[in-house]
């Protein structure tokens, strides 16, 4: 189901936390391409560098070395404000603890992403409701996060990540807090969205239950890619 278009490339990326003698190498020369419509799983033991790699890909962290190419342009060295705009226009994020706004309803949570893009008022509300309906939450539009189950909250998070019509979806342990059934449903949802919207999807996970849903799985160990299989 993957397209032949490269959405994001990582070239010789290395990253150290700290400096001098106390520096810890989190990534050591990573090369990777994310293709449109591809679901890519990043697996590996804790401390292997998975989250650091996703943060670097998502313009949240600058690599110590190497380049990050978005549509062929190196974004690693751009000023912070520009990287911020790139994040807004190109990336959708799904977090382990979904990071919803607890005092906003499901619709309003999705509207936050639209508001950042300048889509406001009735148009934003309509779009948010459509997105929530598309993830199966058409009947929970006005519920607050505390009134939703873990699976429903994660689906709101997915709808919010998709609201900005991103080119790349970056998910950090999106199924870790979900039971098997909800985990698989969330995974299926992301897969459908990726294939329908031709998105590149990168999922950091320890969850072996979802490995079969991926188009490609990359294993990281000690900051290096040790396995890359389709």
């Amino acid at each position: 189901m993957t397209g032949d278009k490269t959405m994001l490339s990582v070239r010789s990326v290395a990253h150290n936390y700290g400096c001098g003698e106390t520096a810890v190498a989190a990534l050591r020369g990573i090369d990777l391409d994310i293709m449109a419509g591809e679901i890519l799983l990043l697996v590996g033991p804790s401390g292997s560098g998975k989250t650091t790699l996703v943060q670097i890909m998502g313009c949240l962290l600058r690599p110590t070395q190497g380049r990050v190419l978005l549509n062929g342009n190196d974004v690693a060295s751009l000023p912070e404000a520009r990287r911020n705009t790139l994040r807004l226009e190109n990336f959708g994020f799904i977090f382990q603890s979904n990071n919803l706004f607890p005092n906003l309803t499901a619709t309003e949570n999705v509207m936050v992403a639209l508001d950042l893009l300048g889509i406001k008022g009735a148009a934003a509300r309509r779009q948010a409701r459509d997105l929530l309906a598309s993830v199966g939450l058409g009947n929970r539009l006005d519920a607050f996060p505390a009134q939703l189950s873990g699976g429903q909250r994660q689906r709101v998070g997915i709808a919010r990540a998709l609201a900005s019509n991103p080119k790349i979806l970056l998910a950090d342990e999106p199924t870790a807090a979900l039971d098997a059934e909800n985990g698989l449903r969330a995974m299926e949802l992301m897969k459908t969205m990726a294939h329908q919207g031709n998105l590149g999807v990168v999922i950091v996970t320890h969850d072996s239950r979802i490995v079969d849903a991926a188009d490609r799985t990359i294993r990281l160990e000690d900051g290096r890619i040790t396995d890359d299989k389709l």
Partner: protein
Amino acid sequence: MAKSIPFLIAWRNLTHDRARFIVTLVGIAFSVILMGMQIGLLLNFISTTSTIATHSHADIFITAPGVTSEDVSTPQNERRRFQALGVPGVERAESMILDFSQWKRPDGVTESISIVGVAPDATMELPWNLCDHADPHTLLGQPDGVIIDRLYAHLLRAEKIGQLVEINDVRSRVVGMTSGIRTFTQSPFVFTSLSSARRMVGAGDRHISYVLVKVAPGYGIEDVRDRLQQHLPDTHVITSADFAASSAKYWLFTTGAGVSLIMSAVLGLLIGGVIVAQTLYANTIDHLPEYATLRAMGGPTGYLYRIVLMQASLAGIIGYVIGMIVVAFLVWSARNASAAPEMPSWLVAAIGMTTLGDCWLAAAVSLRVVTRIDPVRVFR
């Protein structure tokens, strides 16, 4: 009504913890009440310390040397008035006595009063605010007639027109009443004719306190003042505006009462600021993961600032409205008191702007926190 998303986040984050929200509002309202009442009293203080100079309609006052406050006069000879009349640019010059005396109540209690003596044909608008549209010239023309203010009628036990009273052993009669002429010294003003005033304060026939000068059309007040000062070197010639300011300054800064009122108002401002700062800071810390999420999603720093400043503004506006309702009630309740806080519209607006500015300033600490948020923390 469609509300913006930053507004929704600001409002819901602010009101989510009801107890903290109420404490915030109480703090801001308390600050507004403290500022409103203290500044209102300060304005009352300023206007009552200079009420004669402000309401006399004179352009210039001629006083004895060294007089800095209208309430603390030094006697001078009435020939100063005739000398003043000879100076070019002086249209009118009128004598006035302002001195303390003793009012004996029917129950035998003696009250201190401030006698204001003016000629019955005086044109400098003394007294003013006469009740029942009475003519001051007719009233002051009545032998031993005195005019008191309604605010002090009960204190002086003289609540009826025509009542006989005793002032410094001089038998007098209440012939009229004014409304709202307050005194700073708590010795009520008692208006009477110049001749009666002299007897009531035990002064000689040529005794006066001030010469009130009206400048002729076409002449500058400052020019005429300088000419008068040159012509009367053993006096102090001062414009009415300067005399009013000097009187207010004298009481404000020599007694310490004014400084105390100003300090209380500043204290109110500080209390409000600290409470808002504390609340916003705690609120921002509580919601750091949400701010970090916004940053990770690509939200610019300005978007986060808007949320924090909206919270500060909302708290400020609601606290201000509550505070001003209480202030309005207190001002209304004190309208007949001898020290009634003044609340002109400019002060209402100024307190509003100050409160809002105070809240924005208080938000600075939270803005600093928001600026430093690392979006990477959303992955922790």
